[in-house]
């Protein structure tokens, strides 16, 4: 009889603490997995694992962060096994560094987005920009801007130092800004901003831009 009572109490605690986060977890899963079926799998797997490890969770503490950590780990496990199967090696990392660099002038100081670009940020473009971020950058951005976790919480969820969180968030956002700027340039809303004020053309940047333009049009 004692066992039954304990189990019910524990089940109630799980219902009370863990279940309410399903919507939030689903929202996160949709942007991690980028399709509804994989997202549901992710939610299910997360809750199964949460149930199995419920005894490890100290009740009344940060259940939301604990669940998000489980989901993030599960997601990375799935990605790893898929990459092994498909032989895909990288995650478009050099591109993001280039996008970040292009948002800064030669002195390394950030150049703000023009107002027209900000005004024209529509849902579709924003979500595309997020979904095209590499995994590591997408996760921190979602945790910050979709889930509103603090840097410290994000560090716990992603199991990395707070400094890394801050750096990744910064770069994720600058890369997103560049994507939105590119989109605005393609639409003809703004012109490609001048890179050098003294009129000298940076040949490496020029070639890089040409390559990307060709890739976009090809």
């Amino acid at each position, binding site marked *: 009889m004692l066992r039954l009572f304990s189990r019910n*109490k524990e089940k109630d605690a799980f219902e009370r603490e863990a279940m309410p986060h399903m919507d939030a977890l689903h929202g996160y899963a949709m942007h991690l997995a980028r399709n509804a079926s994989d997202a549901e799998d992710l939610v299910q797997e997360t809750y199964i694992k949460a149930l199995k490890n419920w005894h490890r969770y100290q009740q009344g503490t940060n259940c939301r962060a604990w669940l998000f950590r489980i989901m993030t780990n599960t997601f990375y496990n799935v990605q790893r096994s898929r990459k092994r199967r498909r032989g895909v090696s990288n995650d478009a990392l050099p591109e993001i560094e280039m996008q970040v660099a292009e948002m800064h002038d030669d002195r390394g100081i950030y150049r703000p987005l023009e107002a027209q670009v900000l005004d024209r940020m529509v849902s579709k473009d924003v979500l595309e920009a997020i979904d095209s971020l590499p995994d590591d950058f997408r996760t921190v951005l979602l945790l910050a801007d979709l889930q509103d976790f603090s840097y410290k919480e994000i560090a716990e969820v992603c199991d990395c130092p707070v400094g890394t969180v801050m750096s990744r968030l910064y770069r994720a956002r600058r890369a997103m800004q560049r994507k939105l700027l590119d989109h605005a340039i393609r639409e003809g809303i703004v012109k490609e901003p001048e890179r050098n004020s003294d009129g000298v053309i940076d040949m490496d940047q020029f070639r890089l831009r040409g390559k990307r333009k060709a890739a976009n049009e090809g």
Partner: protein
Amino acid sequence: MNCEDVMKFSFAYLDGEFDARDRVELEAHLAMCGHCRDAVQHDATFRSTVRKHLVATPCDPEMKLRVQQRLASARRKARLSATLTVPMALAASAAIAFVGYNGLVASGQTNGLNEQPAVAVAAAPAAVRPVEAIAAPRADNQAARVAGNQPSAVAAAPAQPAAAPAAQQGSAVRLVAAEQPVAGYVGGQEEANTAPDAWPIPQARTAGAIKSMVTTHANPLPDEVRGGIATVQQYLNGRMQGIGAPPISEGTGVHLRGARFSQIAGHAVVVYRYDALGKPLTAIRFLQPNGKAPFQEPQAAATPGAPGSQAYGTMSNHLAGYTVLHVLQRGERFALVSEHESDTMTALLEPDVK
């Protein structure tokens, strides 16, 4: 803090990761640097637009049901294959060696999380910002986003700078963990300088200070706390002792929208933002040099409630279409900034309660 630092840390600031000291430093820079002010404003708009569009798609009821069913079947399987009977309460203690077999773990199944230390996540609440007032507006955002609404009212999402992030290669910004709210706004440095000549008002009357107040009003940085008098007062009380009520009474056509800490001409201030009779109005409360509770007029403090003591006196300046009114109210100094005429603004002040 220089321009490069500001731009590097603008998002950390907007995300509410700065402690009080770094925030004052950054805002002091913004008050004097138009380029950075524009850039941070752009980043704030970008950030709030991203958040506006990033809405969590809630689960449909069928999916919820499927998850519940799967959990139920997992529980059934676990009960059938249970080998040890361990009461839940005991099992919660990580010190117990056989904690893994509590009747819930199906036989033979492992997952990548077994090495996850319970301690690391249990420690998470320390990372959760302890200040309720900061959590509250975001919780509202959160609820609205999950429900599929697009709250336009919070499109300019409030930044709640409270805790500070970690340091990078020898930058000017210190990185400390989230601070508990302390009495006294600027943590640490005591300044014994409360002599009358340290009174901010002579300085606050200078052209630079007045321009600063107009800028604060006209190009507002995001509020730290949004809400009416009760919400704002709770937020401020959580950060410093002895702060009085906001200077303007709520009423028809007059509503407090939010508040933030800032600095004017080197003085720590609280900035209250109102909608007043169809136009924005900013009320600025001067804090002590060390950021503690507000200044009190020495004479008023010496003779509280003496008959004939002025409820308030005013002085006004006009700059670029704005009126800047200097107000003495119940011994405290305020500045009000608005497009209204000084008579209109005076009429809005809290009457002296005898």
